[in-house]
């Protein structure tokens, strides 16, 4: 099964991370449920205009069961207290064993504990920043390039593209496609024939693109948009 973006998200915690995440998700995801155990944070969520907020005792399994999450809902555990996060992940894993659980960790020890407790994805708070320092110290051009993605005025972006049925890319080998012509750089893909894992183009394995695959490219927004439109076409009629 290919991981695809969730349509429904349940966020535990509206604290230092929860708030940011909720605000950035609210445009993409219709169905967000906020869960808090702290009354202050609960009130803050209501003030920010979210109606779908519940105040429960998160350590109680019965109350967790009452949430009745869908099968495809993702859980996000971002309570301010690390210990509580691990506890919630553990409880959720037993109540909803099939759902995806994501968490943020702010220490090396917490990362491994969250993973042991059953979190599917643990985002380390410092891993990216630590690597950025190394880049700043050694690779000024790579630093500027990566900072370009964060900068709103800069229009470089990452984009994941689903290859639809009947696309001209269907059945083509990677080496046959000249991505430069479309102004984008191909980074990697998920090949449905090979399962769920992401394969970087730099792993050097030859792949054939099929409909249903997901590819990831970087490029300027305009080029990416044009390319996205183009792969819907059956035949390639791109002006050379």
């Amino acid at each position, binding site marked *: 099964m290919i991981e695809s973006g969730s349509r429904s998200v349940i966020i535990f915690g509206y604290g230092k991370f929860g708030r940011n995440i909720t605000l*950035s998700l609210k445009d993409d995801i219709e169905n967000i449920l906020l869960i808090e155990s702290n009354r202050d944070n609960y009130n803050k969520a209501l003030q920010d205009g979210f109606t779908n907020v519940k105040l429960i005792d998160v350590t109680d399994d019965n109350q967790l069961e009452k949430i009745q999450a869908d099968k495809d809902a*993702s859980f*996000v555990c971002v309570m301010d207290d690390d210990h509580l996060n691990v506890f919630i992940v553990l409880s959720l894993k037993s109540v909803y064993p099939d759902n995806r659980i994501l968490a943020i960790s702010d220490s090396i020890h917490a990362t491994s504990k969250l993973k042991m407790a059953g979190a599917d994805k643990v985002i380390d708070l410092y891993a990216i920043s630590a*690597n950025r320092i190394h880049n700043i110290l050694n*690779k000024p*051009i790579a630093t500027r390039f990566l900072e370009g993605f964060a900068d709103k005025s800069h229009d470089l972006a990452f984009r994941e593209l689903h290859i639809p049925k009947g696309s001209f890319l269907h059945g083509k080998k990677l080496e046959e496609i000249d991505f*430069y012509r479309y102004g984008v750089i191909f980074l990697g893909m998920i090949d449905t024939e090979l399962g769920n894992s992401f394969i*970087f*183009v*730099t792993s050097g394995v030859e792949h054939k693109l099929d409909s249903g695959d997901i590819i990831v490219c970087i490029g300027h927004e305009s080029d990416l948009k044009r390319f996205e439109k183009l792969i819907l076409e059956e035949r390639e009629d791109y002006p050379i």
Partner: protein
Amino acid sequence: MLKKKLSNCFKEHRCSLELSEWIISVARKISHSQKYKHIKHSVKDILDNPLNPWKKYFDITIIFIILSSVFILIYEVKHPLPVWMDFYDIYIVSLIFLIEYILRLWVYSDMARDLVDEYEKSHFLGRRFRLWSALSRGLKKKLEFMVTPATIIDLLAILPAYRPLRVLRIFVLFRFLKLLRYTRSINQFVEVLSNKKFELLTLLFLLIFIMMTGAIAIYVLEDTHNPNINNMFDALYWSLVTISTVGYGDISPVTEMGRVISMIIILFGIAMISFATSVIVSAFSEKLHKLKEERIIDDINKSEEFLIICGYGQMTKMFFRHSDASRYRYIILDKNPKRVEEAIKDGYDAIEDDASRYETLSRFNTENSKVTVLCMTHDDVENIYITLNAKHISPKIKVVVRAGDESIVNKYKRAGADHVLLPNETASTMMSVAITRPTMYKAIDAILTGKNKAILDEVLIHGYSNLIGKYIKDIEFRHFKLVLIGIQKNSDMEFIFNPSPDILIEHKDILLIMGDKRSIQYFKEVNCKDKC
């Protein structure tokens, strides 16, 4: 010339108004001269600033001269001295020491400035300017310097040059003491002991008291019975030899009472020696920590480029877990002794210090080394303070700072931070990407965290590169399992994303590529001619 004129003037005890006006105008000229200031500053720097790159050579020269002079003293005992050696010892060595002494005296204070200041002050207050009092104020400062032990030693070390008095030869030993100024370990030893001045002085007085008592007792009791004790000096000599538990035995008590006195002062002697030992040992164990820290700082100051990492928290730990971390010279500063202890336990160089203090950061060689400060503490207020502190000490210091949230980034920028990290925001963004676009998340995460399979790296086209003169289409990046992201042309320093295949690669261009660590390594090796 100035000083000569002054002395003439004072001999006459009549300092005319014109003379003082003339002196002030000269002093003013001197203190306003940029060239003079510059020369004085560089002389002072070489003499006193351990970070000055030339000081090392200066020190080595002086140490060599000192050792050669002492060698000559020893050699002279049994051998006739060759003429050139004698000449060297009397004139060259002494002259160098004399010049050094005068230079030190000169740079210690600014006499011209003092004079001008004094003149302006009296002018301002409407008081009559008195040249003598102004001069004495300036000379007082010089005198202050002249009576410091190190300066006295310097002066005594020049004296052996005066040959008519043979006894002055022994002052060559003071040249040996001059080494104190030039060797750090002896210096530190003295410094450590001077911290225990009170204890050591007390001990010394006690020792003198007991020694005197013992000497007087033995003199009174045995003067008539003991052929070896003829005067008070013999008694004192015996007393010290006994009390120090050396006990040569050339003088020993012969009467019963004398032996009793011996026994008593031997007991005192043992007590005193152990006391002295413990005072010195404790002085060192107290200071050992500080000495070690100073060594670490001195070491790091010698490197061309280093990091000052403020705060040993999760971020710093994560930074060190990266595979690149071992290549840096660094030092960790933390206010919290517990975290310093943790860092040392984890095997890192750390010292307990507050990086927001001026004294802390100014200890580092910010002038001659490329310093980067990483402010990694959790506290934004402290980070801002450290940033300002670093930028205040030298704008050359690069500051990378970790910010708590986005609203404060502007403040950091205004404080002068070169890069602001936002771990919380980044993590939140990554979380949203992970939820909405899990495939893209994997790509971004691998690139941003620098996982081995997707490292972004820069390839500088150096003079020996095979790639010079090739077009981008000529390079089989696919064959190398690499992706070319962009190129920075040396000609206009512009970064071209996804460059056209028809771009020519030239000397000093930089390629930005992505790929597995091994592929990048291989690519760099292959595209190198034999020379590199």
